């Protein structure tokens, strides 16, 4: 059963006097438990596609249905709640909060959840252990290597057991060895049942996924 359904999604931007068509009618169907990589060159519309999937970017037209919910029929605050309950984000530059420790960064999505602090700490600790960082919970981001920061970002994305994990160029800032470790980690999470949608420009990453969607000029090319 499809957990994500995109039908004829179009997204246009107005930049000055120019009309940019980032997505020109995209249809995607993703099954629960799938690992999908979305590839394409710079400007192909892959990042726009991910932000539309993440409930953060209203498409100009078309429909996005996720876990049975028509995403863009929700109000702004309902969308925020949907993101909190169903989505996990891994950003290209990690975007860890510099003044919070690894454990606190992972606990961040739980700050708005009604749970005891002890339960939040336990959930964050478990998430960090799943990404292999159980021993560095009290480190600040600047005390961690790039690969470790990426792992913290992944732990933050999975701490609330989201239906879908969205990742934007997660290996973009990592060396090849660390990239392989991170991709293996995503694969491992996927094998444990996590649906993963990853935007990447690195063809080698496609080997870890079940399916690769190629985007070109705002359209699926293959």
């Amino acid at each position: 059963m499809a957990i994500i359904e995109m039908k004829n999604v179009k997204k246009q931007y107005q930049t000055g006097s120019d009309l940019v068509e980032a997505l020109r009618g995209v249809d995607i169907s993703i099954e629960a438990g799938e690992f999908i990589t979305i590839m394409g060159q710079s400007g192909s519309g892959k990042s726009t596609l991910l932000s539309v999937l993440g409930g953060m970017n209203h498409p100009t037209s078309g429909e996005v249905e996720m876990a049975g919910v028509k995403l863009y029929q929700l109000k702004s605050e309902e969308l925020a709640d949907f993101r909190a309950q169903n989505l996990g984000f891994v950003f290209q530059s990690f975007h860890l909060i510099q003044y919070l420790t690894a454990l606190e960064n992972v606990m961040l999505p739980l700050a708005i959840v009604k749970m005891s602090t002890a339960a939040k700490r336990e959930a964050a600790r478990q998430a960090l252990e799943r990404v292999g960082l159980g021993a560095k919970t009290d480190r600040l981001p600047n005390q961690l290597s790039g690969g470790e920061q990426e792992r913290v970002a992944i732990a933050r994305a999975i701490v609330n057991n989201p239906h879908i994990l969205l990742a934007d160029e997660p290996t973009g800032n990592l060396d090849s060895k660390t990239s392989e470790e991170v991709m293996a980690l995503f694969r491992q999470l996927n094998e444990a049942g996590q649906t993963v949608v990853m935007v990447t420009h690195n063809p080698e990453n496609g080997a870890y996924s079940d399916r690769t969607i190629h985007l070109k000029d705002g359209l699926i090319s293959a």
Partner: protein
Amino acid sequence: MKLHTISINNLKRRKAKMAFLTIGLMVGIATIVTLVTLTRSMSNDIERKMDEFGANILITPQSNGLSMNYGGISLGGVTFDQREIKEADLDKVRKIKNNKNISSISPKVLGGVKVGTHDVLLVGVDFAAELKMKQWWQIFGSEPKGDNEVLLGSDASNTLNATSGDNIEIKGEKFKVAGVLNQTGSQDDSLVFMALPKAQKVLGKEGKITMAEVAALCSGCPISDMVNQIAELLPDSKVSAIQQVVAGRLKALDQFKRFSYAMGSVVVFIGSLIVFVTMMGSVNERTTEIGVFRAIGFRKSHIMRIILLEAALVSLLAGILGYAAGMGGAKLALPFMAETKNAHLVWDATVAFGSIGLALLLGILASLYPALHASKMDPTEALRAL
């Protein structure tokens, strides 16, 4: 991890910026506290001084007769065509609307008597009330106790050639001179003071008084209102205020107060601007961070709470420090501003809580727009990487 953890940790990280923000608001609050406390302390100082000045309201009989000067104050005719006030009427004075402002009432009966070959003015007073009102009196000897003791002014003592311990004879009765007043430079120097009931008997004016002096303590209370209230109750008497000196001082103080508030408002306005600009800068610096919060599902209200909580914590600190600094400033400035050396600083809980409350209110108000701006940030714009 709760929302306040984010606020507190952010404040800890941005120590320099938050210190700047705190100091900006603190200076404003401290200025207000200093000025308010100074004006209050100075008012208090003047109020106390008014008490020391003695009477500031005079009740005299309506009189068309010869006038007589008492302490530079014009009284009704006291020599021949003399009218009196009923002593019982004085109780009415204690029932006026502003009766809480009455410090003391000193009734007097006046009359000319012969002591030996000399004509002197005998004044019957309530010694307790009189001494409370005329704290500058210095007595050689002791205060008169009982009906058969008198107090002499310094000139009267010289003229009658009597000093403390001596006896004088008035209308066939012997009175012991309990004490002699040090020179006051006033009418008091030539008077003979006696206990009121005895003097009334000696002068044949039982139950009557010639005048009464009222000491009203207040800087804020309207003496003219009190004069009117007394005059309504005693229609046959003339009630007048001796308030020019004090009123002049209070007017100057009032002008200082207005200037203080205007100056305080400007400083507080600048403090609020500092909070606004700093919070706005802080929000803009944290665009990515706020984008992450929004992306992981924080509501707009969550973002606002984080920003406003930061503002509230900083403002609270600024309020407490501002109050402390303001009181310190007032303590240092008071000796230069007050008229007496022993002017006391007024510690007032209203000023303490008011200043902290004002800091909180200003800090939060000035951060409202930055918080709203942050909450409305588009997560995709905030996270340019996406």
